[in-house]
């Protein structure tokens, strides 16, 4: 019995030590586990300087502009608080859409324009049939019209 209790104590102590170690490591690596920075973070100079990083947020509705006869385009990434303009030349993923999530890799120029080398779409955790999505959009528009009428 005594040996078993000692084993329990060792295992408990080991797991506790491990939990503390993992907590410290995670805390230390917090900044490196960031996959992307929001526009607010970028404008607060929290994004890394002098190397490429990712910016993530929503593509602002109505901001997408394509240059004629090239694959170059520009759009604005927003987190509703701040905005960062992005320029990109290349193909977009199917799910890239205005008003939807996006993650772009690239670097920030001195003019404040983010030049992207890769653009990924970030979709949300909601799944619904097209009819339901249309109904929600309809209801949303109705609500907006009502509020603008007031």
């Amino acid at each position, binding site marked *: 019995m005594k040996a078993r209790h000692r084993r329990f104590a060792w295992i408990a102590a080991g797991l506790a030590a491990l939990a503390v170690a993992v907590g410290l490591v995670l805390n230390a690596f917090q900044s490196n586990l960031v*996959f992307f920075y929001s526009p607010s973070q970028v404008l607060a100079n929290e994004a890394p300087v002098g190397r490429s990083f990712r910016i993530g947020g929503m593509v602002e509705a109505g901001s997408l502009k394509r240059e004629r006869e090239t694959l170059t385009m520009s759009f604005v990434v927003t987190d509703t608080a701040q905005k960062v303009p992005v320029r990109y030349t290349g193909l*977009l993923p199917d799910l890239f859409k205005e008003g939807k999530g996006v993650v772009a890799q690239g670097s920030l120029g001195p003019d404040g324009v983010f030049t992207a080398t890769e653009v*990924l779409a970030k*979709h949300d955790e909601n799944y619904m049939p097209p009819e339901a999505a249309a109904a929600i959009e309809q209801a949303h528009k109705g609500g907006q019209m009502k509020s603008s009428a007031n």
Partner: protein
Amino acid sequence: MAINWYRYASPATFYPVAGRLAPAFGALAAIFAAAGLWIGFALAPTDATQGEAYRIIFVHVPTAWMAMFVYLVMAFWSALALAFNARLSAMMAQALAPTGALMAALALWTGAFWGRPTWGTYWAWDARMTSTLILLFLYLGVIALRGAIDDPRRADRACAVLALVGAVNVPIIYFSVQWWNTLHQGATVSLTAAPKMASLMLAGMLVMSFAAWFWCIAAALWRVRAIILERERGSAWVAALPETNLRAA
């Protein structure tokens, strides 16, 4: 304590029990998989944003859940094996590792083939995907460690310690989408909030999850039977089994 648990902790007693349970769980897995595929492909509607590509969810989510859950179960048996010095618990942990590794590999594979059409990339080093890759390596590490140590009882202890240490990775995987900015979206189904998906989609996902669950149980039981035979060979009860006697005749 009316039930004598030690009786069931004996490989000789558990071997025939596992032999009866495994085919039953295998059959359940097949039935649920058939039903889940029917719901997933014939009944569930198209997704508004992802089109038909979202149907990968019906294999991706069950395999990802099982990859995490099997690891926790393996860690649980490992803890029992260490604490009570129990052979059968160690054998259960040993039996779960390959199935868990398979689930982790399938979760990563199906995730890649889902990520490409939706996000635009097969792979990104975000926290969710990186921690899931670590999970696969932990499974492979446990299997490799087992193979590297000849003495089975020493291998039991070493693998149990590694399995327990690696268990901290499971909550990291689960909460990674909340703790950090990730490319992977947040949880659609959780215990604390209403599911964020149409009911037929949810039904397909849950039925497929049960199928994956039953398969993992069946595979682990089949494997633990083989492990018991491997490790208990030479004992009188194995020699007296009908299947070993039959092959002598």
